[in-house]
């Protein structure tokens, strides 16, 4: 384990390993079938403090730095992806705007609830017409007496059906857009005019509960404003910047689990009179996977550490997200292939992980957008 990770977190990671093996892995099939994490398991996650790892200690969290958090997240990703999804929103895109830009009153009100897991959060940026091009959102917020009226529709919003609090990115000035015309709000679930639309059916990510969020003259008071009017695009982008590293950490965790499943199966499965592990073709698959995971893991540790030191990691976080998620996808494909027909069947978990990992090349900025951002950094100046 990386020596820069604190002693305390290393001990915690051992606890998480046991939690994953003893509590999470046995529940995977049930989560996949029902699309829901059993209450008992969710309560254990809360007891372990998993919802507040990144939230400052003053507000009830553990105040972990990004490096330590990424390595906890990596271990927690070695099981059903719904477990990772529900806790990582509270630790990342669902709370980071608040931590970095919230008023003292807002932080005191929401952060302890998010840290304990009592509140589930969601981050509502994406719209039908605004995916990679986030600044083209059309959901508007209009100033009225003592508050704002929000109108529009968001979609692909993780946790939406169960979220208590939404960070909503809106358009407040059509001319200015990304340059001062986008504003963030904290909207509670019971706000009048907020409703949940269709829950999307997805290839993988059972239990992510991605849905549409509809705002019809949704009223929020002035104190729901997050940061300054016109500052919303920056809030969204800095929030996502960190999210890239957590996506990479999860992808590496999934990749490591797949590799260990592949090694185990290759030793067990016999064809042509010997374990398939003895065939060079299989050995190459395993060797390539291990090499890519090692590289991705080092990129992650280095970049997260740089972030914690206060360095600008825009380019490195894009590179790490790109490499880790592309590698994890290749690994999922190889390990499925190594399992042959059995890998195509739902009874081996590879099938599920193959579907889940596909989304990683899309969310938190597609691979293509990462390349554009890397190129932009290279070409500027």
């Amino acid at each position, binding site marked *: 384990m990386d020596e820069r990770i604190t002693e305390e977190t290393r001990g915690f990671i051992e606890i998480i390993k046991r939690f994953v093996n003893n509590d999470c892995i046995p529940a995977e099939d049930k989560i996949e079938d029902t699309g829901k994490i059993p209450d008992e398991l969710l309560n254990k996650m809360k007891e372990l403090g998993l919802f507040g790892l990144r939230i400052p200690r003053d507000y009830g969290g553990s105040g972990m730095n990004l490096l330590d958090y990424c390595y906890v997240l990596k271990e927690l990703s070695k099981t059903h992806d719904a477990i990772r999804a529900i806790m990582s929103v509270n630790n990342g895109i669902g709370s980071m705007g608040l931590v970095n830009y919230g008023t003292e009153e807002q932080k005191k009100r929401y952060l302890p609830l998010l840290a304990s897991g009592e509140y589930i959060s969601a981050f509502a940026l994406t719209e039908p017409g*605004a995916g990679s091009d986030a600044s083209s959102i059309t959901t508007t917020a209009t100033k009225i007496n003592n508050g704002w009226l929000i109108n529009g529709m968001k979609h*692909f919003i993780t946790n939406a059906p169960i979220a208590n609090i939404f960070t909503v990115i809106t358009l407040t000035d059509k001319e200015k857009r990304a340059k001062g015309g986008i504003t963030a709000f904290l909207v509670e679930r019971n706000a009048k005019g907020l409703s949940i639309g269709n829950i999307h*059916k*997805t290839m993988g990510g059972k239990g992510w509960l991605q849905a549409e969020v509809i705002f019809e003259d949704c009223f929020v008071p002035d104190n729901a404003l997050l940061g300054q009017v016109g500052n919303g695009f920056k809030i969204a982008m800095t929030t996502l910047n960190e999210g890239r590293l957590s996506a990479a950490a999860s992808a590496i965790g999934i990749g490591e689990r797949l590799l260990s499943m592949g090694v185990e199966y290759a030793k067990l499965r*016999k064809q042509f009179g010997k374990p398939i592990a003895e065939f060079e073709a299989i050995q190459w698959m395993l060797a390539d996977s291990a090499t890519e995971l090692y590289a991705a893991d080092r990129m992650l540790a280095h970049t997260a550490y740089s972030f914690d030191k206060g360095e600008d990691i825009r380019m490195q976080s894009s590179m790490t997200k790109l490499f880790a998620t592309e590698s994890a996808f290749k690994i999922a494909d190889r390990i499925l292939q190594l399992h*042959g*027909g059995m890998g195509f*069947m739902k009874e081996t978990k590879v099938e599920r992980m193959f579907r889940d990992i596909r989304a990683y090349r899309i969310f938190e900025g*597609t691979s293509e957008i990462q390349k554009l951002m890397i190129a932009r950094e290279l070409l500027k100046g």
Partner: protein
Amino acid sequence: MFIVTHKQRLNMTFADREEYIKLREEVRKFNLRELAPVSSECDEKEVFPFDVLKKASELGYVGPHLPERYGGMGDYYAKAVVYEENCRVSFGYNLSLNASDLLFANNISKHGTEEQKQRYLPPVIKGEKIGCWALTEPDAGSDALSIRTTWRKDGNHYIINGRKTFITNAPIADFFIVIARKPGSIKTDGGCAFILERGMQGLYTGKPFKKLGGRCSPTGEIILDDVKVTRDQLLGEEGNGFKDMFSSLDVERAYTPLSSIGIAQACIDAVVAYSKQRRQFGRYISEFQLIQEKLAVMSAELEVARNYVYNLIELMVHGKRITKEASIAKLFASDMVNKATREAIQIMGGYGYMREYNVERYFRDAKLLEIGAGTSEIQKLIIAKELLK
């Protein structure tokens, strides 16, 4: 949506002949009308669209390669056109259809007695009965000759015991071809193919497996517990089971890569339409070079594969030995379609990952093409073996 995509191609294969262009148009229209509206739902519910099969059979789209006197058209090219067009809409539908009219029925047609042909071919061609073909076992996947299902003689009868797995159509089949070996026999000796029917004592099928893709095509186990049959149910000569299997394999192997062609064409249909209507950063995404590069590579690889596969079909029809060529086609085309489905989802971003858009299904379906009917790794071994001998 356009009906025919390669009308303008200059080089001539069977696919450019007037009759097959016309057939393709008809099959496309039929599939868009009958198959496309149910294909997502059948995938979701994991059920086979029997109604579509019945209607398709009325138009001659089931078993067109089988002899005319049993209801077919004796036309192997027509089978290729139907095969590809089916996969362009629903790979799973074609997977089951093909297990019935090719894996099962072609083996009957090739190795069966006149009585067997009369009994089994017409109902399959009419879409009234479903056939399947069973070789794979839990411990015999890539290493196919290591099967442990056995037959032994008991007077005028044969008694079959064993267990087959991953058999396309097993849960819905009326007729089965089961490959078994004589205890103690090795390699290609001692094999027998038996034609079994649902309802025979000792024959059981398990529940359908849950799968990543090809979900409207039920796959399952067959359990054979002292199944006792007469000589009438033996397909081909006693002991010739493996040799017969290899002799008809070329036909099956020639068609397999058409699945990749059909699915890749469906991806191109979907992403061309999408990229021309989706706007980001103030432009249609089709105007970005990054998207154009993806479209260009998808199309280039598809057309190269398409031409190679059509050529392969012609070689097969002319009775040429295609051991190496069929492996090259399967390896290349299945790699091509997996890249195409990956890119199709990627071009559509979040939408591509959602069930309501078909590319999500194409992606899951395509993965089987690198596994079923010989994994990509096995194809490479075959190509290398042919090169080195």
